[in-house]
């Protein structure tokens, strides 16, 4: 494969969008936020984000929103990610590695059940006070 041009990228996107409209839209309104502070980066958060994209792609899920944030205040269990799935509680997972990402996609996002052995609840106290103690 040679170097892709912007035009080729546009074409590829159009093809994908057409294919997408024929499938049901799994993953819609789901959101994954990866903690990408200095602590997260040092612990491998970029690999986690990469693995998320790869596993979502393998499961043909195109609609999950994948974003990043700074440190969530849980530096001791980095890499951390927050997962929002409609109808389920918002969860922060910690000590996330490639195997855990696979579990989170298959169990939490697709299977709608929590991955209990990696849950680290809410952001730490110094962040909670900032957004109203959520």
């Amino acid at each position, binding site marked *: 494969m040679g170097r892709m041009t912007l035009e080729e990228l546009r074409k590829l996107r159009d093809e994908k969008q057409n294919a997408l409209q024929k499938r049901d839209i799994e993953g819609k309104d789901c959101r994954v936020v990866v903690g990408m502070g200095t602590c997260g980066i*040092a612990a491998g958060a970029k690999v986690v984000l990469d693995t998320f994209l790869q596993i979502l792609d393998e499961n043909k899920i195109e609609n999950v929103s994948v974003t990043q944030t700074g440190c969530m205040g849980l530096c001791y269990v980095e890499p951390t990610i927050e997962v929002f799935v409609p109808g389920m509680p918002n969860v922060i997972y910690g000590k996330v590695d490639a195997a855990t990402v696979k579990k989170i996609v298959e169990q939490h996002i697709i299977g709608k059940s929590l991955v209990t052995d990696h849950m680290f609840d809410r952001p730490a106290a110094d962040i909670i006070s900032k957004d109203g103690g959520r």
Partner: protein
Amino acid sequence: MHVFICDFLLDIVQNSFEAESRRVELSLEETDTRLVCQVRDNGKGMDEAVKNRVLDPFYTDGIKHVKRKVGLGLPFLIQACEACNGDFSLESELGVGTTISFSFNLNHMDTPPFGDLPSTILVLMSHPLAEELLVKRSLATCKGSGEYELSKTELEDVLGPLNTSGTLNLLKEFLVSQEEDLKQFYIEHTLSKA
């Protein structure tokens, strides 16, 4: 401490996004022996006092994390550059912007491995605070030279908002193909005898 050069890039460019920059430029010039990097933003900048204090690992502005007493991004970078006889410099003007230049000596034993540049650019391009990010990447060795340029607004124009898994996977494929094109000029680095 970060493992890869790319981890430092990610960490440092994020600072620019968080400094209310409209436009951030990342340039990476790699040769046989050196990697020269520059991050230039037009964010809020720093005055002389703050500029000196950000190099201290025990200084942070206290805005993101009220009780926190450390800011390790820049100190980590300086440490890594110094360890391999690289350079580091910081220029900043309040209200105008900040430019950080640094380099790694690629033949030095203590230089971190480069890391995965396409996935690093992917993360930076999709950063929620990034309005415009320009990346200029070049590789010039004894085998020849190549380069590519990327612009966030241009990519968004093609792909739409860079925030869903499908779009990001397309962008990843595009970024990998850019870097793949430079591979023909890449040389294995040998450690210097010194």
